[in-house]
């Protein structure tokens, strides 16, 4: 950890301290709710409710959506939606304490901002699709799943990181 006053925004927690805190939080989450944390479910709820709002009959007719839209059930009244709101607030608190809050595009000096955004969009698209096939993303499936020794948790953990290591060479110009 470097404590450089000129670059205070790059001063982060010791990673093992962060890991300890995260581990205790996940254990507490399981202890209280019986489930782990998640990060894609909240976004999914907004997709479902948007489609329901724009095309209600379409949403009711489709099997994927009809699981979430019922007459007396609002898809936004969902544990993961409130948790996602919490993530945004918590990250904003941490960022503002350390002076990291401002609008900017972070990218390698070797690529343009536009290129960064195109690949950010592509990466998000892939995560959106992949997380549905895998029944969870890095948080819900890999992190929370492997904590309770789910087979699926280890499959996704090894799958995500393994794939990224295998293909890292082809995308190196985006980052280094």
């Amino acid at each position, binding site marked *: 950890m470097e404590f450089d006053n000129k670059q205070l925004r790059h001063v982060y927690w010791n990673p093992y301290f962060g890991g300890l805190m995260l581990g205790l939080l996940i254990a507490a989450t399981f*202890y209280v709710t019986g489930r782990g944390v998640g990060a894609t479910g909240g976004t999914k709820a907004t997709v479902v409710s948007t489609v329901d709002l724009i095309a209600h009959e379409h949403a009711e007719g489709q099997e994927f959506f009809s699981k979430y839209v019922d007459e007396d059930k609002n898809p936004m009244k969902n544990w993961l939606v409130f948790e996602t709101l919490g993530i945004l607030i918590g990250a904003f608190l941490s960022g503002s304490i350390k002076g990291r809050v401002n609008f900017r595009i972070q990218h390698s000096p070797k690529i343009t901002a536009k290129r960064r955004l195109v690949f950010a969009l592509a990466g998000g698209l892939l995560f959106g699709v992949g997380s549905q096939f895998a029944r969870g993303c890095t948080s819900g499936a890999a992190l929370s799943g492997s904590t309770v020794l789910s087979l699926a948790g280890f499959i996704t953990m090894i799958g995500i990181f393994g794939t990224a290591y295998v293909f890292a060479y082809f995308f190196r110009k985006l980052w280094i």
Partner: protein
Amino acid sequence: MGPLTFNDIISTEWNYVIALLIGLAFGYILEASGFSSSRKLVGVFYGYDFVVIRVFMTAVSVAMITLLYLDYLGFLDFSLLYVVPTYLTPQIVGSIIMGLGFLMGGFCPGTSLTAVAIGKIDGIVFTGGIWLGILGFSEAYPYIEDFNNSGYMGNITIMDQFDINPYTFAFGFAVVAVIAFTAASMIRRKVKEIQY
């Protein structure tokens, strides 16, 4: 005995308050550990920053051992905890898709939310991508439904599949984590420093 909301020790009305507080702590920890920076995250794949491995494997070890220990002491029924269902083939395919998404976008969904919170436009665009990806998946669902539901093995754990003692496994995982941290430090010293 835990889990508390299962055993009606905490009423379900508190669920959303708890959700908000857990999310708040989750977001705070991720951001404070540097997970709102894509270049810091991706460092794990190029050897210039191993924060992902250090935080992730520490967290899994701590949480796994804590929960098993609470179960051992009788404070928690480990068998009631939610196990993610295994759909072998779609899960492998989905993870490969997500691995490529990580390399291109530099975030995963949780970390991109922390980037959104501190105003990173690349994080906002990434989250928009997730939104569109889920929309595309759901619109294409009738065509991919059969594949999506293939390879179902149930909500199974490592113990169910490999007949291994959970305590042995948790110990083994922690040992692997320490080896990974040591290897990461050795690699980190050899790789050229990146400014970001």
